[in-house]
């Protein structure tokens, strides 16, 4: 039974229960009718709220249903409102644990070197401490935890490096931090692959393939796979991006993703074509500039690189690319 039907039947039952109170029958019959209608309504409401409760919470569903039923039954009217509010709260505000769609990887929190060991450390500090085998374990663990708190390619590379450490504890912790990063993406891929099996419309298929393309690419971008495995993920990302397009899922982000994939595969002609498609689909030119510059750089056309980096003054202040733009602007 769908949630909507449960809601409608529940409301009708509750309405019948309330009407029964004002009926012409003797008192005991009115009470009996009210209790019966209210019981049915409570059961339907508790079922509705239980099935609508976010599945990300690992809780006893029978217990939850029982709890909702108690609210609904013993506090007529207000109990049902309360359970709906609880449901709304969990669905709207308690979803921070869910994984957002990949668009970019957040940068590690400490990008610059810090002299104060206790307050955190930059990637350089973490690298140097992890590489210094003679340092006390506690200091090296701190470096590792600092890196693990961030994400992205540099953090993955550092964690990967630490999995080869001579200290068992360092390498096991590094492994677990690495695994945690990879697990979230892997789960998204598995869920999307399952969804693809049951997707029955081209629009849905396009959307699922798009998710798959981005998730496989996230594996590459986050440096969670190396060598042959990375190549496999690149191919998978390309395959699903192409499928998404085939099903009609064209959007500027997808074209930019394809540009990045072709750049990774060193297929510069296709990358150029993907850039043009992205621009034609309405991509923000500033988002495309880094890839155009990369193409020009690979063609050893440094004048174009310089021109692209200078074409917009704000580019110098954008994260990551800003430093590159400043370098080229200084020539």
């Amino acid at each position, binding site marked *: 039974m769908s949630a909507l039907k449960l809601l409608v039947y529940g409301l009708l039952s509750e309405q019948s229960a309330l009407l029964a109170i004002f009926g012409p029958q003797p008192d005991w019959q009115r009470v009996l009718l009210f209790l019966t209608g209210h019981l049915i309504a409570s059961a339907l409401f508790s079922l509705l709220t239980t099935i609508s409760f976010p599945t990300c919470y690992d809780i006893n569903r029978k217990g939850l249903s029982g709890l909702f039923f108690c609210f609904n039954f013993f506090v007529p009217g207000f109990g049902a409102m309360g359970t709906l509010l609880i449901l709304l709260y969990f669905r709207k505000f308690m979803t921070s644990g869910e994984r957002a769609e990949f668009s970019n990887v957040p940068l590690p*929190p400490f990008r610059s070197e810090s002299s104060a060991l*206790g*307050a*955190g*450390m930059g990637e350089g500090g973490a690298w140097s401490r992890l590489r210094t085998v003679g340092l006390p374990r506690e200091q090296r663990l*701190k*470096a590792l*935890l*600092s890196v693990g*708190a961030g994400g992205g390619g540099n953090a993955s590379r550092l964690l*990967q490096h630490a*999995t*080869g450490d001579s200290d*068992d*504890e360092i*390498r*096991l*912790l590094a*492994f*677990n931090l*690495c*695994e*945690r990063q990879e*697990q979230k993406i*892997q*789960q998204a*891929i*598995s869920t999307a*692959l399952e969804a693809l099996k049951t997707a029955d419309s081209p629009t849905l298929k396009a959307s699922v393939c798009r998710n798959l393309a981005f998730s496989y690419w996230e594996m590459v971008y986050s440096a969670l*796979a*190396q*060598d*042959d*495995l990375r190549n*496999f993920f690149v191919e998978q990302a390309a395959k699903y991006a192409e499928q998404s397009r085939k099903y009609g899922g064209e959007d500027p982000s997808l074209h930019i993703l394809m540009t990045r994939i072709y750049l990774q595969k060193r297929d510069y002609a296709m990358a150029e074509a993907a850039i043009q498609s992205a621009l034609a689909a309405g991509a923000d030119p500033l988002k495309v500039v880094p890839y155009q510059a990369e193409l020009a750089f690979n063609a050893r056309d440094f004048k174009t690189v310089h021109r692209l980096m200078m074409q917009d003054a704000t580019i110098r202040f954008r994260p990551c690319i800003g430093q590159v733009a400043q370098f080229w602007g200084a020539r």
Partner: protein
Amino acid sequence: MSSGKLPKAAQVDVMLLLEGTFPYVSGGVSSWVNQIIRGFPELDFGAVFIGSKAGEYGEIKYELPPNLKHLQVHYLHDEHTTPPVEPCKGDKAGFEILQRLHGWFANPHPDGLPAELKQASFYLHNKGGVDYAQFLYADRSWEYICSLYTQRCKDPSFVDYFWTVRNMHSPIWQLAAIAGSLIPARAYHTVSTGYAGFLGGLLHHHTGRPLLLSEHGIYTKERRIDIFNNEWIQDNRNALQRDLTEISYFRDLWIRFFETLGRFCYDAAGQIVSLYDGVRQRQISDGALPEKISVVPNGIDVARFAPLRSTRPAETPKVLALLGRVVPIKDIKTYIRAVRILVSHIPDLEGWVVGPDGEDPEYAAECRALAQSLEIADRVRFTGFMNPVDLFPRIGLLVLSSISEGLPLVALEGFAAGVPLVSTDVGSCRQLVEGVGDEDRALGVAGGIVPINNPQAIAGICRLLLQDQEAWNKASQAGINRVETLYTQQQMFARYRALYQEALR
């Protein structure tokens, strides 16, 4: 065998203290325990199995050896029979001793724990000690927890602190109750520190009989890693209070708790056995006295596996096998990724995962999903348990991608059957594959060693060995030579016979 038919005896020669292993969990340590009991038929063994919750374990996984005369089972998080709530003040002397204990936690000194705390009776009597009811309900207990929270706790949540302290310490009273009621034994033998080791320490002090500790991995280290990665341990500090380079207070508390249990066991044990030198070094750094420690490697019944060498096909099968439970510590995922890489180069290759997958169904499902997402679901077979005797002739290489190992018996069994090993550089695996010392190294390299979490490296060595018959033959012979020379069951039993004789005097 169902749990209702457990053997019972009035007394035994050796009481084994087993946490989460034999006979309810299959695996390397459990097989070793089974092997040891059967290896000494002249001794009567007893065993205390300590588990977390009954629901997490199925039926007994082994046929119980005839000389296992006594088996009792305790679940620390199930049989929690709390005493009836009765307000009480609490024994002043007992709580003063507890305060000294916490002083010792903060500043351990060489004399070890206060003597009173080593006795099980301290935890069982309400005069001069602190029994379970006092721990739970006494005014002094509440006041003491409150004062420790104020003085030491860096986490703002008192509720979490209170329940962490309760949950953490409750097993101590249960273990003390076990120690107070266990049948007599001439010696106690624990195969880990942790709760089993703490029980061993209590039993040693309670009865005066010797305690032997055989540590296959480092329990404290493994708990530490678990605690680092557990999601259920809360950190209630806000963004301004939190330091990303520090673990949360409660994680630290749990780690210190297990370290203390470990030190208590090392202190009580008369003899400590390590499987290889790496464990010995770690035990010393964790507080064990070097003069107590001896290294006794695992050994196997080579004659059982040697005939398999002649049953192998002439050409090496393009089959890899990972023998082990499907659990995160075996890092099955890295193995599956390595199979993905290999399939691109050797299209008819198969990767088998041979072992039970019921222990962590969620992880097993993730592994299957990974194989699917890598498009090798038809190349990776989850076979469940297989008899090694049937398995070894059908595979080309044994692979261990574990993130932690001791001295894996499957590697030795594979060597005896002529199967080389590709393993991560954990535990004593490098020693098994490459040898240690000139004489051992001269036996050859019995496969390959790779860093953990590196599927490319696993695939590289597997590819080399599977595509080069001469290299495979050399590795196979090196494995055979090594196991026949250094890792036989007879050698291991001889060492343990001497240890038992010393303990049973």
